[in-house]
């Protein structure tokens, strides 16, 4: 069953100029696809192709210029009701930038619980934070530490615990492991897969790394200059890329060939 529907989404950014014509960037052009419940849809494309722009629209941080996004039965927009939001979370590339360094880990993880008024009382909150930290492979007493006391991979686990705290059904991951070393990346990717299995999560997974896509995706869309130029199930796309742009991307990807 398709859980997320992106329907003919376009986005134009306009820049006002003092002299001469205003300039327009068409960051997304009539993009449509859907994501099946419990599956991972990987969106690949080079820098500036519009991946993060789409991510922001899908989570309702920004609005489309045209078209719409439906998640479950809810139409997504920047002014949708609060209770729609708790079902949608996001994990970013840089766990440094997205975790406030002055907050304790427990408060960071509990922040969505508070924002969505999902918990009553200190004890209940403490128990839920402990449960979340253990779910992502950290320890309950890590709650009292600060982000700088953790490595990059551990910080990304904290971001994931926070994203999970409101029990979302859908998580957008925007380059969640690009800043991590391979051995740490493996830990985070395995964790995301395991959580998907355990909690039946649906992911929109954004990356430029095709080898990562191969291990994560059920379905793949290729974005180029704001246009979805190709979409296929993962196996098929790698075996038989149709669009010349996809072929070039696969050609250029520095993927390790272990015999």
């Amino acid at each position, binding site marked *: 069953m398709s859980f997320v529907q992106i329907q003919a989404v376009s986005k134009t950014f306009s820049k006002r100029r003092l002299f001469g014509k205003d300039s327009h960037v068409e960051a997304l052009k009539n993009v449509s696809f859907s994501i099946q419940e419990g599956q991972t849809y990987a969106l690949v494309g080079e820098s500036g192709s519009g991946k993060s722009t789409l991510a922001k629209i899908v989570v309702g941080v920004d609005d489309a210029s045209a078209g719409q996004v439906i998640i479950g039965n809810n139409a997504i927009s920047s002014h949708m009701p609060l209770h729609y939001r708790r079902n949608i979370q996001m994990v970013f590339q840089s766990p440094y930038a997205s975790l406030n360094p002055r907050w304790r880990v427990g408060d960071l993880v509990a922040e969505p619980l508070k924002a969505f008024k999902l918990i009553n009382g200190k004890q209940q909150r403490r128990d839920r934070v402990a449960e979340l930290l253990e779910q992502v492979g950290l320890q309950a007493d890590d709650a009292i530490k600060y982000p700088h006391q953790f490595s990059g991979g551990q910080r990304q686990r904290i971001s994931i615990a926070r994203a999970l705290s409101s029990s979302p059904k859908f998580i957008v991951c925007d380059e969640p492991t690009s800043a991590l070393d391979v051995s740490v990346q493996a830990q985070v*990717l395995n964790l995301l897969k395991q959580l998907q299995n355990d909690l039946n999560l649906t992911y929109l997974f954004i990356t430029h790394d095709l080898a990562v896509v191969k291990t994560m995706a059920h379905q793949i869309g290729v974005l180029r200059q704001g246009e979805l130029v190709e979409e296929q199930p993962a196996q098929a796309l790698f075996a038989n890329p149709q669009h010349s742009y996809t072929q070039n991307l696969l050609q250029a990807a*520095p993927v390790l060939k*272990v015999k």
Partner: protein
Amino acid sequence: MSLLEVDKLCVEFSTRRGLLKALNQVSFELEKGEFLGMVGESGAGKSMTGNAILGLIDAPGEIASGDIRLDGKSIVDSPETIRGSRISMIFQDPLSSLNPLTTIGDQLIETIELHTNRRGAAAKQRAIELLQKIDIDADRLEAYPHQFSGGMRQRVVIALAMASEPDIIIADEPTTALDVSVQAQVLDLLRSLCQAEGTAVILITHDMGVIGNWTDRVGVMYAGSLIEIGTTEQIIQAPRHPYTQGLIASTPTMAADVSTNLYQIPGNMPPLTAIPEGCAFHPRCPKAEQQCQLSTPSLVDQVACHLWRDA
């Protein structure tokens, strides 16, 4: 005699938390014209190795022991300018190596005049030649760095690195900030230019895919030590050190799919202030034996691991 010999190099920093061994007995050779990769996780000491060769270790860091020889002569104490003409560098961020206020033509000509015996028109002619080699029109000599895309800028940096006609180029994560298709162009270019000129390259990267596709030989670093070195084929297809084996197994490849998990090396690389006794990898090593906690294996026959001794 090899072009470059790094011999039991130790670099130390005195910090508030005590002595930090940033490089521990690093030894390897670089031959004329070869493309050597240096791979490892962040903080393993890759950049430190490059910086030591370039003479860029600053206080509170110092080369505590060991030697670096170019054509058999120690360069540890030679002033930076001597190295500058024989060893060039390329960094991750092309803007840090380009002067924003000077045209790329002037930057090329200045480097050529400083490091070669070409002057005036001959230097300009050489600058044009270099631009052609990197597929940029000669009329862009008058352009400023900000007028180029990221990939073009990194190509200009390559031309600038070649301008002094060096024997060695040290490229530290030169394509980490670029898209894959641009990365492929830049690395293909670097490889073909260096092959044509007989320039050796040390390519520093954390990306095994880059290693696999563009290098002849690879050194693998872990917690300040060079733990294995060999041909790229051998390191990727038949790694011997348990850390290299784990590193390769945890790299996503085309063989993987969504139903399989990636291999995970247990634990994390220790900070350099707390390197374990014995083999630095032993707390994470699935093959560790008792002696691994007691004695530090040195690099013998291209691998630093007790398993490969007296076999």
